[in-house]
């Protein structure tokens, strides 16, 4: 029987601090992505080479996606959303490396990512509406909605966490079960499916994060302007 998906194995200990494998893999992914970005952007030229062209394509696609969801300058959200998208994509696809388990298949990583989005949405809401406006958004349209609004704020970030965890973990779990039944070549179609799921989940996480963060900003925009089409979660 496989070990529980809720357990994490300790890689090594620094004094009293136990460092688990997902943390090691996470730092590895972060180092890899940082190194790649640094190497490509170190010598930017006006006539882009192959790597720079790919990077520019990624950034411009990201910008157009952000612009379609939230009106205004996409550069405000690009660092957060782009990092989330690329990191989760890389993390989900680490299952292709033999012996490495995706860090997103553990609840702790997803909880960290979802709390980043949670704090970012509060930050943007306060920044665009002020503290009073942010607290006021909980009692709109009436006082009766206060508990529902508070619960809704928390559960949508909770479901963000559970969605990523459930999808990636179930893929890893199914592959490991199939692997223990038939080892040679049989898990490959499942792994291909898992790559697709990983890409879709990364995209969905980033899109929902953008919608959550952007809904605060567009709420502020609709207060000042006449009614325009807003983005709802």
């Amino acid at each position: 029987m496989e070990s529980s998906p809720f357990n994490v194995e300790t890689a090594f200990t620094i004094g009293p601090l136990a460092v688990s494998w997902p943390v090691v893999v996470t730092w590895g992914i972060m180092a890899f992505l940082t190194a790649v970005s640094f190497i490509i952007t170190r010598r930017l030229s006006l006539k882009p080479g192959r790597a720079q062209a790919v990077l520019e394509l990624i950034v411009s696609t990201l910008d157009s996606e952000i612009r379609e969801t939230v009106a205004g300058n996409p550069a405000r959200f690009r660092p957060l959303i782009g990092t989330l998208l690329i990191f989760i994509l890389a993390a989900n696809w680490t299952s292709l490396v033999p012996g490495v388990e995706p860090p997103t298949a553990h609840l702790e990583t997803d909880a960290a990512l979802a709390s980043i989005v949670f704090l970012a949405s509060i930050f943007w809401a306060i920044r665009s509406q002020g503290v009073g406006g942010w607290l006021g958004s909980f009692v709109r349209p009436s006082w009766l909605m206060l508990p529902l609004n508070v619960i809704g704020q928390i559960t949508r970030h909770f479901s963000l966490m559970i969605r990523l965890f459930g999808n990636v973990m179930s893929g890893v779990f199914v592959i490991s079960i199939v692997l223990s039944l038939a080892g040679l070549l049989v898990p490959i179609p499942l792994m291909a499916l898992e790559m697709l799921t990983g890409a879709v989940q990364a995209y969905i996480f980033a899109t929902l994060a953008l919608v959550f963060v952007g809904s605060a900003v567009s709420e502020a925009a609709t207060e000042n302007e006449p009614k325009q089409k807003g983005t709802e979660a």
Partner: protein
Amino acid sequence: MNDFIQITSVIAATFAVAFGALGPALAEGRAVAAALEAIARQPESAGTISRTLFVGLAMIETTAIYCLVVSLLLLFANPFTQ
């Protein structure tokens, strides 16, 4: 006593996944059917429709994932069998 709890947990986990998958499956079928119809009618807006479809499908799928997590909790992290 412990055995009884484990047997019950396995049965409960099966039911959680079985019935938890039923609703989202029907809902996703409806969503995809509606999206296909819309794309057939307006192929030029296929990009917007499929983006919205993906996000919507993820939302629907969340309920099934909740059931999966609950059943895994029952199987692997059952608080009553410790």
